Structure formats: structure tokens, C-alpha cells
């Protein structure tokens, strides 16, 4: 049973410290964050095979580098920073090797659709989502698929929380406006 449910009651910082003493506790962190990390990576790279590779690399790196994490309270943003770096390396490598995505298991624009009653606006939403740049897609993936808090996203990007909020809000506003056209 690996589901991303309410884990706010679990003290992640304590769990990180427990894991530093005994790495076997890492399994718990893995169970808690696998789906969220995977969702973020898959949303970005769009095919399962690459997402699995990058997700494996992310967790293995995290396990091996946990001692380098200075502040256990920042585990979540640290973990997603690793995932982000892996994805960036992947994209850089793809560009360098002139590789094109051969299979697209996930289409980003199809991950978000209007609620019932507004299905006829689906096309407009998709058009808008297509126009999002990579940074904006990442924000959406972090917030609504990896379920990070604004604070955690701010830590990853090293920007104020208010900046993250306003960026996401602007995207949502545009999406919402497309429904009212």
C-alpha cells in the first residue's frame, strides 16, 4: 500500500535523524515520498522508463547523501532538489546527444481538465497549458501533483514564499480565465 495520504502528523525531521542513525529507516521516507517524487519526475520527462531511472537515482542518491543534509527540516525540498537536478541532467544529456523523446506516456496538458460541467472548455485549458514554460510546468507539478507546500517550493527555488505563491496564482488565474472565455 503506497499511497500519498496525510503524512503531516509524522515528524519527518525526526525520521531523517533516525535514518542517519540507522539507514533502514529510509524505507519509511521512501514509502512516504515515492509517489510524490515519481509524479514530479514523470510529469517532467513524460515517459515511465526514464521516470523510473531518474526516480531510482534520486532515492539512491538521497540514501547515500543523507548525512550531507544539514537541516533535517528541509528534507522534502532537499529530496526534490535532487530529483530536479537528475531531471536537468537528463534534459541536458538529451540535448547534447540530440536524442528525442521516443515515447510519450504522459501528456502534460491532459493531466488537468475542467471539472464536470465545463468539459467543453477542455480544449482551451489544454491550449493554455501547452503555452506554459518549463518553470511554470514545474510549479504546477510540485504544487498539485507532488503536493509540496509553498514553503517547500520556495526552498527548492531559493526564492521568497510570496514569489512562489504569486507565480502559481498567476498561472491559475490564466487557467481560470480560459474557462470564462
Amino acid at each position: 500500500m503506497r499511497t500519498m495520504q496525510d503524512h503531516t502528523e509524522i515528524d519527518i525531521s525526526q525520521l531523517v535523524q533516525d535514518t542517519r542513525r540507522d539507514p533502514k529507516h529510509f524505507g519509511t521516507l521512501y514509502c512516504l515520498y515515492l509517489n510524490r517524487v515519481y509524479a514530479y519526475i514523470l510529469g517532467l520527462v513524460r515517459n515511465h522508463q526514464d521516470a523510473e531511472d531518474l526516480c531510482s537515482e534520486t532515492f539512491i542518491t538521497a540514501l547515500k547523501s543523507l548525512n550531507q543534509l544539514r537541516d533535517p527540516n528541509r528534507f522534502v525540498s532537499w529530496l526534490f532538489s535532487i530529483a530536479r537536478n537528475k531531471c536537468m541532467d537528463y534534459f541536458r544529456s538529451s540535448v547534447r546527444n540530440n536524442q528525442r523523446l521516443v515515447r510519450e506516456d504522459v501528456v502534460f496538458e491532459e493531466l488537468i481538465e475542467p471539472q464536470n460541467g465545463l468539459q467543453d472548455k477542455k480544449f482551451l485549458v489544454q491550449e493554455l497549458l501547452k503555452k506554459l514554460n518549463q518553470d511554470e510546468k514545474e510549479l504546477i507539478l510540485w504544487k498539485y501533483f507532488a503536493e509540496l507546500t509553498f514553503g517547500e517550493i520556495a526552498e527548492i527555488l531559493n526564492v521568497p514564499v510570496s514569489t512562489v505563491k504569486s507565480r502559481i496564482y498567476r498561472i491559475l488565474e490564466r487557467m481560470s480565465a480560459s474557462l470564462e472565455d
Partner: protein
Amino acid sequence: MEEKKDFQKIEEKFNWKKDDLLPDEAFASKLEQELIRQAQATTCQAKPNRASLVWGALAVAMAALFLAILIIGPQKVYARLQKLFGYVENFGVVSSETPLRVLKKEVTQSKEGITLRVSEALLGDDFTRIHYAFEGEKLAGEVITAMPGEDSCRERGEIVLSDGRVIGISEPIPEDENRVELRFACIPDAVMGKAPEGWSVWLEFEAAPEGMQVHQVRSLVTETREPIRVTETLPETEIQTERPEATAELTPAPVEEELVLKIKEYVETDVSYILHLVIESYIPNGWTLMTGIPKILDANGTELVLQFPDGKFELLSPIEPRNDGEYTQHDSWTLEISKQNLALPLRIQLESVSFVPLMQEALPKESFVSLDLGQAQVNSAFIVDKTVLLEGEVIVIDNVTVTEYGYQLSTRIEGKLNAFDLEVEECNGVGGGGPGMGWFDPPSHDFSVFCSNSPLPREITLKLSNATKRLDPRQWQEEWSPE
């Protein structure tokens, strides 16, 4: 507050299809197994060495030798074959577009009978490798063995550049920086508060001497990736299972295992060969572990003494997807053997053990146990002592403890059963777990089950599933000679 409402209002207009981004269960399970394996390895390394504790009172007690290794991806490595790329003794494989630099002279700092000694360093355009050690009689016993409630120093050192910028100990140092400060807030792995803190030494670098040997790395990778067939040898003695009678009724289907041993690359120095041994293994739906260390025999059948040199070749991804949706596992070793009186060819041998699902036909794949824990409080412990059959194998639930996060369960298993998963059905969220295949400490298994329900359920149902068994160990052999 208003802003939160606005967000919510807009969010609710959309359907966020989160389920489209869930990982495949088989992948999740495989990765979990690999992490367990790596966590076990990390745990083993983290245990204080008993011998060093004894010797600590006499001489050097702890040598926290830290070799910072930059992991270079394969494409990067091959793209750089044109520039400096080779094996430097004590430092492993390095590549650099700029000339290498080394430590000008050894530096030390002493405090309260403990000495920080930086003995060697090698710098390239994208890596820094520093060999340092904390030495001293005081670094023994309680100073390096944390008791419950005590914290160990997790610092790994940092470098301060001339402009005040702080970088990690393995990060590249700019080419024009030949004098930097190396700092340690505390001694790595020492118990906090029990050893002097605030260490700082100045390191000076100079161009590597012209005579410094950078050995050529001979890559033996072929484009075709045609597996080199290995010869399977029979074990010298029949390996007995712990309880043969417990598994006598099993009628396992034959399992096809594949294992490829190969020397991926090697370095020849004046006195030795340094081999990068790679093991690729595959077993349908299962998992293979290498047991022990490889053994190398020369042509006369003499077992060679192996050294495990500092530094490594490029790291391999531990799992590689196959076309059939399964995974090939990778393990690798860096081994050094002396060339003196060496009779070629060599025979490389190792032993593996594999784990596969039990899959007993005609038996249920899940079993259930109900428990009433009454008014359970955190740290309440209950003796259960219940026997359950899972796919015909015996599992004993010994006891349950209520924890801050959920439940801790102790179980015992018998026969060839190696592992199983355990869930608490009533728990929301992450309500279960299992050691995964390849867990090497039967007959006991402890489970941490996480439960986000508040309060925790009083009556719980344990669901046992995914039984796996351990196959008999197998031995593998490959012949090799340098080109």
C-alpha cells in the same frame, strides 16, 4: 486568508489527474529492495570496528579517511577520452581538462591530543579529492560510539575560497585558487560534545609533478553488449536449508537465472592489475544478491590476495530496465592484484543467492490476523504469539508495540520463506510495508507499520502477502586475461 480562498476557488474548477502519474507497483517494489540492500550495506559500514576500538588506545584510533569521488556518467567519460583520463594511485579514475594539481605539503592541526592530518590531495577541473584523517588516542570508546540520545557529528568538511565562498570538500576548486581553508565544525562521526570542535587548516596546491603516473584505463566495453556466458560450477557440498522438512512439499517451478561476469575495464600499473569487475544479474520476478567477495584464482589454481584500492571506476546504475519490463541488476567491484608470479589466465569466481515469489499454486496468496489492542497508548506492548500460514509456510506474530507513528510488529518465519509484506488494513495512508526480497536476517522480521489515523485503530487486521523464498546459493565463474 482571502488569498487562500482564491486559490482554493480556482483549484476546485479543475480535475487534477494525480493517478496518471503513479509509479508501477513492480518498479516501486524493485527500487525498495535495492534501497534496502544499500541501506544494509550502509549499516554495516557504519558499525564501529571492534578491532579499531581496541587499537585506538594504543595508536591511531580513528582514521576518517574521506575520499571524495566525483561520479562521472558514462557519456561524460567517453566524451573526454581525448583529454587527461586515467587512474591515479590512491585516487582512482580521474579526468580533467586542466592540469592536475596536488597538495604542496602535508598539513596538520592538533587539539587536546587529536590531530587533523591532510596528507594528500588531487585537484582537477571538476573534482577535488582530499585525503585527511583525524588521529589520536582520545578518539576511541565513548568519543566515537554514540549512546542512545547522543548525536554524532555529521559534518564532512568544507572549503573556504579566497573570496569567502564556501564549497563542499569534493567540489572543484577554481584553477587560480592555490591556497584555501579546509574547515570542520566537528570531527566526522565523533559524538557531539565529546571531542574538540572548530577545526581549520590551510591547504596549498601546486601543479602535479611531471613524473606523476596516470595509468591508462583500458575499456573492454563492446558496442553489441553481447553477454559473456559464464560457467556455472556446482557447489562443493550440498547446501542444507535450515529446515528442509518445512519446504519438502514445495514444488517450485524451475527458475531461469542469468548472470554475467565481466571485466569492464582495467588498469595495468608497474606492479599490479586493477580490475573493474561488473556483475549483471537477472532473475524473472526476483532479486539476486552477491554473497561475500569475489575470489580470483590464477592458472595454477592459487587464490590471489585481493586489494580494494581507494577510488573507483565510474559508478553504474544499480538497475537497468529490460525490454520485457523487468530489470537487470548491476554490482561492481574494484579489485587490485599483484603481477608478481602471476600465472594467466585468471578465474574469477563468486557466489550469489536469489529470491523469488513463493507462488504456491492452489494456496491463497494472502492471510489475515485480527488483533484487539484495547486502549493502546504509545509504547504499549502486547504479546501476541499467533501462528499464521501464508502459502503453506509458518509465520509467528510474536508481539505488537504501539509507536508514535503506528505499530511495530515482531514476527518469526520458518523454512525457506525469506520475506513477506505486512499491512494493517485499517490504516490510512502508508499502512504497511515489508522488508522486500533479499532480506538476510530470518528467522525474525520486525515491521514498522505507519498509520496516520488519529486515534490509532483499536482493532486491527494484519494482512500478510507477497511471500518470497530464498533459492539455494549458486557459484559462478569467468576466465579473464589482460589484452
